[in-house]
Structure formats: structure tokens, C-alpha cells
């Protein structure tokens, strides 16, 4: 009995330390967010004198007022990001699952060939320069919104993941529909797709997050200021804050020239850009968790 008790106490003690670890790690995860909000709420003069701090002294809304007076640039970026996320995710999930369905059907004679066709691009790539030359010189996709959507539309690992799921569905369901005179299209849209909603949702959420956070193709191909997505706007804001500021020339009333926003505006821009998403995505955490655990399937 005493031995048992001792063991139990020992177990409790360890788990107490474990809690401390996770609370500390949680703070390390959250403090950067708090710091960014705090900087965005601090007056530029105070930032120049005292530097950044984790908690704001006196809340000052100058940077946000400045953004409110010049909303166009952020709103435009939001529109582009929402468009590429919604359209891109929809098309990607649809086309990927269509291909996955074909791959899952044993009667499809091109199954093996298609499998290799999809697998090879994960092993080899033409490299950045070849893609760049083709997209700009041959397809003329520069400064075209579709360059932010089309190139990454077929996520090969997603195809394999959904294929594995389709293969686990009972064959008899498909055959019954075929007996009733349904085509492969009917089976896909009426049977396979509705039954695989959970896995499709997982793929769609992971894809949406990636699209929302994408900036690479915009950096390569977008020069038109009206086609800049949020993340690229942020990147430009980090690298060339003055050129962005010159586009935002409406001054809110009652601001001293010394208080002209700089660092605080940068951080306010980050808050405005990632804030809504950070509030939204954690609610769909289970999809990301699922995506991680089923993601490692064989080719």
C-alpha cells in the first residue's frame, strides 16, 4: 500500500513540472504576439526614446488612425488574398480529389502510369529560373492574378492522401451505383466525394492556410500595386517602408510631424493582416492536427 502511494505521489510531482514546462513554452509562443500589439499601440516618439517593450505604456492609436485614413492599400491586399485563398483552395481541392478518385479505381488502366506521373515532380524539379522564364516569357503570367493560383494547384501529396482514403471506401457502394447505370462521374460526385468530406476538409484547410500565407510567387511575378496580396504587402513594408508610406499620404488630423508613424505603423499593419486569421484558424485546429497525422503516406 505504502509503495503504491509513493509511486502515485511521484507521478503527480512529475506532471506538475510538465505543466510548468508547457505554461512557459506557451508564454514563449504568445509573448511575440503581445509585443507586436504593444509596439503598434505605442507612440513613435516613445519608441524612439525607449525602444520596444513587451507591454504598452500608454495606449496610443496613431498608427491605427493612420491606417484608417489610408485604407485602400490594406483593403486591396485583403481582396487579393481572399480571392486567391478562396478560388485557389476550391479549385485545388476539387482537382486534387478528382485525380485521386481516378487513381483509386482499379479498373483505370492508366493508374500506374499516372501514379508515376504524379510522383516524379516530387523527386525532380526544373528549378526557379526555368519556371520563371516559362511563366514570364511563354505564358505571360507576370502581373496576372492567376500566377498566384495556378502553379501550386496540384499538391501531389494531397492527391496520394485522398487516394488512400478513397481506396478504403467499400467497393460495393461504387458498384451498386454503377449497376443502377451511374457513370464514374456520378460515383465520384454522389458517392466518393460526400463520403470523404472529413479528409477533403483537412486538405482544404491546410491548403487555405498555405495560400493565405503565400508571398513567394507575388514577390517573383507581381509588380502591379493593385495585385499585391497581404503577405507580400507585409514583406514590402518590412523592406521598403518609405515607398509604402508615400502611398499613404492622408494625414489624420491633429498629428505632430514628429509623431509620424514608422515602426508602430509597421506593427499595426501586421496586426491588421494576421489578426483576423489568428482568431479564425485555431478553431479549426482539429483539421490541422488530422492533416499532420495522415499526411505521411507512401507514394
Amino acid at each position: 500500500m505504502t509503495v503504491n502511494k509513493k509511486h502515485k505521489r511521484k507521478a503527480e510531482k512529475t506532471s506538475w513540472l510538465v505543466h510548468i514546462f508547457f505554461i512557459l513554452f506557451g508564454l514563449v509562443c504568445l509573448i511575440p504576439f503581445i509585443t507586436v500589439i504593444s509596439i503598434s499601440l505605442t507612440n513613435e516618439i516613445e519608441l524612439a526614446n525607449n525602444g520596444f517593450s513587451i507591454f504598452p505604456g500608454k495606449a496610443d492609436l496613431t498608427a491605427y488612425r493612420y491606417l484608417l485614413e489610408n485604407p485602400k492599400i490594406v483593403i486591396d491586399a485583403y481582396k487579393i488574398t481572399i480571392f486567391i485563398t478562396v478560388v485557389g483552395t476550391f479549385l485545388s481541392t476539387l482537382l486534387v480529389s478528382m485525380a485521386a478518385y481516378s487513381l483509386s479505381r482499379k479498373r483505370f488502366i492508366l493508374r500506374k502510369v499516372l501514379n508515376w506521373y504524379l510522383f516524379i515532380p516530387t523527386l525532380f524539379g526544373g528549378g526557379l529560373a526555368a519556371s520563371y522564364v516559362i511563366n514570364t516569357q511563354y505564358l505571360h503570367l507576370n502581373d496576372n492574378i492567376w500566377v498566384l493560383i495556378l502553379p501550386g494547384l496540384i499538391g501531389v501529396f494531397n492527391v496520394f492522401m485522398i487516394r488512400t482514403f478513397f481506396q478504403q471506401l467499400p467497393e460495393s457502394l461504387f458498384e451498386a451505383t454503377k449497376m443502377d447505370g451511374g457513370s464514374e462521374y456520378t460515383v465520384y460526385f454522389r458517392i466518393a466525394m460526400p463520403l470523404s468530406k472529413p479528409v477533403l476538409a483537412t486538405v482544404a484547410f491546410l491548403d487555405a492556410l498555405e495560400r493565405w500565407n503565400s508571398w513567394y510567387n507575388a514577390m517573383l511575378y507581381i509588380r502591379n500595386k493593385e495585385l499585391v496580396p497581404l503577405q507580400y504587402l507585409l514583406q514590402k513594408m518590412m523592406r521598403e517602408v518609405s515607398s509604402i508610406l508615400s502611398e499613404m499620404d492622408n494625414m489624420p488630423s491633429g498629428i505632430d510631424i514628429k509623431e509620424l508613424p514608422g515602426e508602430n505603423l509597421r506593427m499595426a499593419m501586421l496586426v491588421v493582416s494576421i489578426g483576423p486569421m489568428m482568431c479564425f484558424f485555431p478553431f479549426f485546429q482539429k483539421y490541422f492536427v488530422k492533416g499532420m497525422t495522415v499526411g505521411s503516406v507512401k507514394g
Partner: protein
Amino acid sequence: MKRKKLKIPHLKDNIQLFTLALPAIVLLAVFSYWPMYGIILAFKNYKVPLGMWGSPWVGLKNFLFFFQAQDAWRVTRNTLLLNFLFITVTLVCAVGFALLMFEVKSRTHVKVYQTVSILPNFLSWVAVSYMSYALLEPTKGILNRVIESMGGEGISWYAEPEYWPVILLIIKIWHGVGIGSIVYYAALMGVDSELYEAADIDGATKLQKIRYISLPCIVPIITIRLIMAIGKIFRGDFGLFYNVTRDQGTLYPTTDIIDTYVYRALMNQGNVGMSSAVSLFQSVVCFITLMITNSVVKKINPENSLF
């Protein structure tokens, strides 16, 4: 008569299945296979008006240009060493994180800890670069203010390359350990709890249970993750290296990797040929490492191999 024997079974179904796969086939042909053909640019002196095929062949000149410069050794070494560092340390951290998470018995606690630790992973590297900037900015940054308040002298972080391998490692772990541990945690949850109960009866300590039950159960997943990571050891995380270092030239000695080099060769110098050559070099070494790691794993345990 013979033609009838060659008839494709379920012809109509096959046509329909082909049309379902067609958009994916076309998109990959345009955006993956066409650039693969475009790798001939590595052996050419690309001139826009002459096109990819029409530009003059220059043999291995682009490769020589790259390998004769000091840069080849520097970027290859940086890519390899930093990726090696990232792979090993993130693996250990993620497994450790999962083992600790496994000790947390309350479901609500697990949920809360997981949600918070995954949070950084929702950020793009661009957004992360803002946070590292808030920390490392030389005059206003939090880190230097802390150092100065303790009587030390601030460091101009963006001009001192020697600190960056560690800075990048910490940021990489901060960004990815939460999400990276999930796959191991899920595997631990799948372990038969009777094993632990039996160990308890035998009076096994926590560490013994980890050593003899938990770890052996997640070894298959660790191996497959490891091959995937080692197979990509010549591919760097462009977003991390480009944004978080703010592309500062002074940091190149330790932070310039193949991917950032390829990007600059193309976008800053407009050297299509050399950029392609370096990409081809990267693709080839990448492919070789993947084949080697995969065959090694196949020898040890065929179940865990990638293909």
C-alpha cells in the same frame, strides 16, 4: 478478330476516369514538366528573343562559373550544415515535446497546450520576420534593451553573422515544434495502454517506460520523418532564410543557402544560366541523397521506406 482482343475493358469508365484526372495532368505538364525540360537552360546562354531552345549552348560554362566562385562551397556548406542542425535538433525537440505532452493526462490541458504551441505555425515567415525584428532590432529591439539594462553592450544582430545559425535554429523550433510533435503524440496515443499497465506492475520508472515502450513504438515514424527530411537536406527553407535575415548581405557568410543564392542569381543578377545550373546541381544531389537514404532504410526495415 485480333483487334477485338486488344479492346480496353470498361472503355467508357476509363475515358471518364481519364477526364477526371485531366486537369491535374495538364497543370502538372505546364507547371512541373515544362520547367523540367527548361533545365536545358543550365547548359545555355539564355537570350530572351531567342527563346529557351534557340539560345546558344555553352556546355558546362554555367557550372564552372558557379563552382569556380567561392560561393559554391559556402552555400553548399551552409545548406548542409544548417539543415543538419535543424533536422537533428527539431527531431529531438519534437519527440521530447510529444513525450512530455503524453505525460499530461487531462484532455482539456492537452488541447490548450497544443493550441497555443501550434499558434506560431499559422504565421508566414514574413510575419515571423516582424517578430524577430522586434526582438533583434539593434537600438530598439527587446533583446538589446534587456542586455543593456543588465549593464551589457547591445549587439548589432543584423550585422554579426556568427550568431545566426543559433538564431535561425531557435526561430525554426519556435515555429515548428508544436505542429511537428503532433505526429509523434498521435503515435504515442496509439500505443496499447496495457503495455504501460504491465510496466507499472513490474515497477518500471518513468524513464524506463519511455526507453522501453514509448520510444520503440514511435521509431517507425521517426525513421520515415527522418528519411523525408534527409532527402531534402540540400533544399533550404527559402522563406526563413530570406525574410528573417532581412536578406542582409553582411549575414551571407552563415545564412546564404543554395535557394537564396539561386534566387539572387536570377532576380538580382539576371543570370538565368547560372541560376538554372545551381538548381540542377541541387536537384541531382537531392535525388541522390533521397535514393541513398531510402535504400538504407529499405535494408533496415522495408516497411518504413518511402517507395
